[in-house]
């Protein structure tokens, strides 16, 4: 289904057909005081040349030639031009959400394949057609657990992405949902004893992230067992999907909420990203959003349908399972194309490179006097180190050498002042890791 612009004459024709004299008459049911009486305050109109100049200027503001060691929920990975070539086809790029689902077979098939890939990656039985991003997916997973258990207390590990926790608190604020945080141990993992202590029969869900915000890999199985012993649902959030190329999928989870940005989406400022929710078949009725399903038509040919959409906002109003009524179809398509190009071996190889390069980077950094590792638990492609100086001051120095430094953990975690979260992916050349270590050493040696 394509987006079709309308000429003024066509608008008149449509108004005439429904018996309205003007657009204003069409909107007459909207009270006068809520109507906009002046043109929208947007500049222009501009000529084609001016528009091109404007966007060229904005594009030139992008930084180039920097090497980044910043991850923390957004990751720089290799992307193929094939992905962009496919998602820029008009049939995908301009198509709107499939409300008349069955005529959009291509869109439904792409969504179906996305769901299949997400199930294979997460070890779950069913995945939906995507959410906004990892943070909303995590929150929707909690709301799902709330509906399934009828309980309103949620235990969230403090090592879950701080912004994911913020989104959850925003949703919880006026809904009666009580969110409590579980501390982390000296190794950087979820404090299992604290979790055990906080678990009672009123807990709807236990939420952990792995690899967690410090890059540390959690052991799902014992945590799941603890949660399940209290009949609470076990929710696993994943910010770095590439880790699934190497790590065991969180099959013990009741719901997996994942950020799909690592799969073919550039780390642009503000997104767009693609959230993933995957779960067990038996929980599907409480899953937000929609599901595409494979079927056969009356002549026995393979076809696709919107299998589950009856609980969506546009059908069920205030009783819908979620107010997220749209999906990230184009981003989900990018992830699907990207993963299909990579294949199973490709994803594993990419994950292995992340794993090895992060270890090389850690070894290089630990050679610098005064730097020590913050947590000793296993990690994937991010790790935390403590610097002898303010991370922000060091980062200002690094930026002058065209290096985007690690995340200063002191802002989200006051107890981790001077701790830095370093990210290394397959895109970081060995020489750049060495240049980073050298620049960091110089920055620390400079008199304050």
């Amino acid at each position, binding site marked *: 289904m394509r987006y079709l612009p309308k000429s003024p004459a066509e608008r008149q024709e449509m108004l005439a057909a429904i018996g309205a004299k003007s657009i204003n008459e069409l909107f007459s049911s909207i009270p006068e005081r809520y109507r906009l009486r002046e043109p929208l305050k947007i500049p222009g109109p501009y000529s084609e040349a001016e528009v091109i100049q404007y966007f060229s200027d904005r594009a030139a503001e992008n930084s180039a030639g920097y090497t980044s060691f910043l991850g923390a929920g957004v990751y720089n990975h290799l992307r193929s031009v094939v992905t962009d070539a496919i998602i820029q086809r008009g049939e995908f790029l301009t198509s709107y959400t499939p409300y008349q689902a069955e005529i959009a077979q291509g869109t439904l098939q792409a969504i179906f394949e996305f769901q299949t890939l997400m199930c294979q990656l997460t070890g779950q039985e069913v995945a939906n057609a995507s959410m906004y991003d990892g943070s909303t997916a995590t929150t929707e997973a909690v709301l799902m657990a709330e509906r399934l258990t009828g309980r309103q207390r949620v235990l969230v590990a403090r090592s879950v992405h701080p912004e994911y926790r913020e989104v959850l608190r925003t949703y919880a604020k006026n809904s009666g949902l009580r969110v409590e945080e579980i501390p982390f141990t000296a190794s950087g993992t979820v404090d299992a004893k604290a979790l055990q202590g906080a678990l009672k029969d009123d807990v709807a869900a236990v939420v952990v992230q792995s690899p967690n915000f410090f890059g540390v890999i959690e052991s799902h199985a014992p945590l799941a067992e603890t949660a399940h012993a209290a009949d609470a649902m076990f929710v696993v959030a994943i910010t770095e999907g590439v880790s699934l190329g190497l790590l065991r999928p969180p099959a013990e989870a009741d719901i997996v909420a994942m950020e799909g940005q690592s799969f073919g989406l550039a780390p642009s400022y503000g997104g767009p990203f693609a959230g993933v929710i995957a779960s067990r078949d038996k929980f599907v*009725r409480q899953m937000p959003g929609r599901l595409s399903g494979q079927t056969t038509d009356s002549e026995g040919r393979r076809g696709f349908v919107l299998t589950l959409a*009856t*609980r969506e906002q546009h*059908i*069920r109003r205030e*009783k819908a399972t979620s107010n997220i009524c749209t999906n990230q179809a184009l981003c989900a398509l990018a992830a699907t194309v990207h993963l299909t190009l990579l294949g199973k071996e490709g994803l594993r190889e990419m994950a292995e490179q992340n794993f090895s390069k992060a270890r090389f980077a850690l070894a290089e950094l630990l050679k610098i006097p005064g730097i020590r590792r913050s947590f000793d638990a296993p990690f994937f492609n991010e790790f935390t180190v403590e610097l002898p100086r303010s991370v922000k001051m060091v980062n200002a120095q690094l930026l002058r050498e065209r290096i985007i430094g690690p995340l200063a953990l002191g802002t989200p975690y006051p107890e981790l002042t001077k701790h830095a979260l370093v990210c290394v992916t397959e895109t970081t050349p060995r020489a750049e890791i060495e240049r980073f270590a050298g620049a960091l050493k110089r920055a620390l040696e400079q008199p304050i």
Partner: protein
Amino acid sequence: MAYPKTYRYSKEHEWIEVMGDVATIGITDYAQHELGDVVFVELPKLGAKIETGKSFGTVESVKAVSEIYAPAAGEVIEANAELQNTPEKINTDPHGSAWLIKVRLTNSTGISDLMDAAAYEAYIADKGKEASA
């Protein structure tokens, strides 16, 4: 399909059959017809309290999810487990084997205000006229 004379009917298209202090509740043939092919039923747990006029579950068809409203107040003593695997029974036998729940009535005062079979048939015939008007 005939509407059993021993049942009472609500405006929201539920039926109720009272035997002593226990009542069986289901949805009417008219309701299943309006919904279309039923694919899922969500019923309350044993021991749940239902209140007159309040929703106690949902029936999902291929085109919509609808609330089921309690025609009387009581405590759920049985939910029709067979409907979990064969929800389509609601389409074929709504007044019989596809009953939804059995409750122990805590307040039966409102039941006599519900329609009898003749009144309900007149009520849905009226609805039919509305729709075709």
